[in-house]
């Protein structure tokens, strides 16, 4: 037997891919969790089709899951994968473009036949040549037949047997990357506790895959990735949607206002509603509405009744909520609207990521209709910005729009769990003084009105969508309308005193400031670090607070020769900055492919602007 080739790496990206029904998302998630438990830092990116089960074996039906893990801080799932696990030829075809040159492809050789080649649209019997994947390490593994072989005496039908194929691949990859199987075994036991046959079959196949790797180690190199140096503490894996839901729950507890979520299922935001619906033990009320409009209007009703009200959606649903956001602006009720952005316009690319709802969030309503706009930057910090969105809404009596995106919502990373005591206080503006109460009497510092709800003795009042005076009564007075329009805008701008100053990563002055916002942080910070290693005078300013902008934005920008705004749209934030922070040398780099940035393309864009 040849000696096993052991390769030590700082970071590795693996992409699992197969048919939508092959269980690749679960395989990827289990591998990621096992890696995080070993102490690696990780970042994941599920990349799946909009169709639940597209025709088997076709490129359109390929579902992928990429994870990068390493011994250093991991900020992205990796531009390109070192290792591709492909359950059929279509998976190779769909994912070849996401591979590092010279990477390793592990494929199920049982599916590499004429039938599958045709389905995947190959015209020859050599898919690798057809895709020009010449210098790659290609390891054919009889995944299907080995799975069948290891389960032949269990009396299962072929369909059930094939369902365990993903476990063979998982076992094999675990051996290659030196992951012990105990976490995965525990998961299988817990998940199928009532189905001993399923537990038995999955475990058998998992071990068969692991042992296959060990026995045939002359073919497969083994990689070692040491644990990362990360901040000590208690950790868990979390994706952006779960973090968003938990941030809202944390805000409800901190503010002592019960949570009400009115929402309608929509990809990729649905999971937030699902996670909240599980939390009846924390008193969360969830209302699956008949449509997006009822989602937000039930939430507004709950806000009128004194709850921390939220509605969660994605682009098209956000469009449907516009009128009701306007009502929240006019009535000056606290409300959090979460938009997990996806590719648009219209139905667009439901399962793909984009940052193209920024201008909709800022301006997409009738009338002068200002709302606070925040954006989260990593899967785990969705928790923090959901919490902050609720804090601002409750303390300033204003609707707050939180923008995340499909990349953050579905992507996951290890998260150092905070304790509730560490989080800032939330003090809702609850009315206290009956004698002086008028619904639109404002705090002179923040311009926020006071909140009173039905059931509170002595505060009965009327509010609505019509322009009003201080007592809430309808007013058509021209001067009053102008004054109110201005004060609603000023109230949002006053939120700036809750907004931390913009920080610069890198030197405070230089040739170029890379500017990004929201879910691109992992890629932009890696870009800037890489370029700085190469001696470039480049810094990063990343925005989480869009409206209002941090107070020192202009000051930060003024120290750089060029401002390069990178975003996953055709230039929405840069247009906003040109308007709000004029006089800077703005340049832009835009991509709208439904995919995250790659560090490589950002580096190239920056260098182009440095050399221009």
């Amino acid at each position, binding site marked *: 037997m040849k000696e096993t080739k052991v390769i030590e790496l700082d970071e590795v990206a693996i992409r699992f891919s197969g048919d939508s029904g092959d269980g690749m998302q679960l395989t990827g998630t289990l591998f990621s969790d096992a890696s995080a*438990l070993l102490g690696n830092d990780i970042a994941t990116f599920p990349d799946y089709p909009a169709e639940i089960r597209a025709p088997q074996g076709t490129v359109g039906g390929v579902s992928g899951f990429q994870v990068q893990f390493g011994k250093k*801080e991991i*900020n992205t799932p990796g531009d390109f994968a070192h290792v591709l696990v492909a359950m059929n030829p279509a998976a190779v075809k769909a994912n070849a473009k996401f591979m590092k040159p010279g990477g390793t492809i592990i494929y199920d050789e049982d599916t590499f036949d004429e039938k599958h080649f045709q389905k995947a649209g190959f015209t020859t019997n050599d898919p690798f040549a057809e895709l020009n994947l010449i210098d790659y390490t290609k390891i054919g593994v009889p995944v299907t037949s080995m799975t069948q072989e290891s389960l032949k005496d269990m009396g299962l039908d072929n369909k059930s047997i094939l369902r365990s194929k993903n476990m063979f691949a998982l076992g094999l990859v675990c051996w290659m990357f030196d992951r012990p199987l105990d*976490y995965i075994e525990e998961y299988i036991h817990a998940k199928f506790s009532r189905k001993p046959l399923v537990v038995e079959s999955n475990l058998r196949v998992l071990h068969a895959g692991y042992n296959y790797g060990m026995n045939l180690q002359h073919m497969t190199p083994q990689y070692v990735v040491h644990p990362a*140096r990360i*901040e*000590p*503490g*208690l*950790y*868990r*894996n979390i994706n952006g949607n779960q973090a968003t839901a*938990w941030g809202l*729950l*944390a805000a409800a*507890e901190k503010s002592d206002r019960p949570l*009400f979520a*009115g929402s309608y299922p929509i990809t990729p935001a649905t999971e937030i509603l699902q996670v909240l619906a599980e*939390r*009846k*033990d*924390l008193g969360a*009320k969830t209302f699956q*509405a*008949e449509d997006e*409009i*009822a989602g937000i*209007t*039930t939430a*507004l*009703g*709950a806000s*009128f*009744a004194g709850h921390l009200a939220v509605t969660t959606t994605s682009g098209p649903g956000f469009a449907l909520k516009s009128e*009701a956001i306007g009502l929240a602006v006019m009535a000056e009720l606290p409300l959090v609207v979460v938009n997990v952005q996806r590719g648009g316009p219209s139905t667009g690319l439901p399962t793909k990521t984009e940052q193209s709802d920024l201008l909709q969030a800022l301006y997409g309503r009738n009338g002068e209709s200002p709302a606070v706009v925040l954006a989260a930057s*990593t899967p785990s*910090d969705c928790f923090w910005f959901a919490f902050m969105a609720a804090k601002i809404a409750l303390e300033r009596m204003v609707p707050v729009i939180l923008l995340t995106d499909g990349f953050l919502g579905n992507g996951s990373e290890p998260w*150092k*769990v*905070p*304790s*509730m005591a560490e989080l800032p206080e939330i003090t809702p503006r609850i009315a206290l003084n009956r004698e002086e109460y008028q619904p639109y009497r404002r705090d002179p510092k923040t311009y926020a009105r006071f909140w009173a*709800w*039905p*059931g509170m003795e*002595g*505060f*009965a*009042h*009327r509010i*609505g*969508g019509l322009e009003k005076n201080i007592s809430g009564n*309808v007013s058509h007075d021209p001067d009053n309308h102008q004054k109110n329009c201005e004060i609603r805008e000023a109230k949002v701008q006053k939120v700036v005193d809750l907004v931390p100053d913009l*920080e610069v*990563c*890198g030197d405070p002055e230089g040739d170029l400031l890379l500017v990004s916002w929201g879910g691109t942080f992992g890629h932009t*910070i890696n870009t*800037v*670090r890489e370029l700085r290693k190469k001696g470039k005078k480049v*810094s990063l300013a990343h925005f989480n607070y869009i409206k209002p902008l941090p107070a020192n934005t202009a000051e930060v920008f003024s120290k750089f020769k060029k401002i390069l705004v990178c975003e996953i749209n055709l230039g929405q934030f840069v247009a906003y900055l040109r308007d709000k922070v004029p006089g800077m040398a703005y340049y832009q780099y835009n991509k709208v492919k439904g995919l995250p940035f790659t560090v490589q393309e950002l580096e190239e864009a920056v260098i182009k602007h440095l050399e221009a």
Partner: protein
Amino acid sequence: MSELKYTVKDFKSENEVRWCPGCGDYAIMNGIQRVMAEMGVDHKDYAVISGIGCSSRFPYYMSTYGFHTIHGRATAVASGVKCANPSLNVWVITGDGDAMAIGGNHFIHLVRRNINLNVIVFNNKIYGLTKGQYSPTTDRGFKTKTSPYGTIEDSFVPGQLVIGAGGSFYARTIDTNLKMSQEVYQAAALHQGTSIVEVLQNCVIFNNGVHEQITDPAFRQERQLMLRHGEPMLFGEDNRKGLIFEKGKLKVVTIGENGVTLDNILVHDAEDPDPGLHLALINMKLPAFPVAFGVIRSVKAPVYDQEMELQIAGVKKNSKITCMDDLLRSGNTWEVKENGFEPGPEGCPGRSAIL
């Protein structure tokens, strides 16, 4: 709790009421205020939610908590109010345009969920606030500003939507009949679940007399059937006419003719879970039948807002998670020990330093 006694005046706001002189809305508001005063509910616990339309100005004329929302969404906003705080007494004020057209979806889903709200649908078969366009309840062929040659569509019968959506309470009344209206508002308020009250309301400006055939005092007895639970379905002069069920259909008969006696006449059972006869009563129209009024359907059914509370209480009792700190530490977590951690390269901190 001390006896809560209010007068109608306690429910009037200081705002000048600005409906047109002679508008049916005045009488409806008066009736609702009267019922509110007598219900023994604390004034602070009333909330009145409206959409858009003439009737939806209603909350501004009340002294209770009120929310004048956006077109069609009053039922949804009120659903949120009630689910947030089921101890409130919540009234929805809406019209045929607001509830049947732009808010049609919310209307049927509210009824389906059976949230404990009282919904007053002011049905004048016209858009009044926009000055006279046909609505979803306008009769086929009717000429309005947007149907100068007559409409070419059939109208909704609100009661049919209630039955179709599995509703637990439906009543019909007339703005000018104060006695009947008050009885109906009170029954609606006492019912546990979504109470839909359709009020035939007269718009004096854009659709004056739309319900005249029904309300004309000269023919009132012949054309209106007042339904009361447990009482026979009688109408006409001296209650000589009645309804029987024959060959699967309702039929008008006269007592004393063709051997018909009082015993043959149907007795109204508003509490019958089977909606068959309720639907037949709702469908009755002139001239073959009188129009049915009163509480047509009032049945017991699970109430959404109460179920929501019960489910939360049940889960709370059995869950190990009692606060956020429990949740944050639940499931798969791991401890990272001291390992020489540094917060990112110098001058370019990592994400933890940015927050």
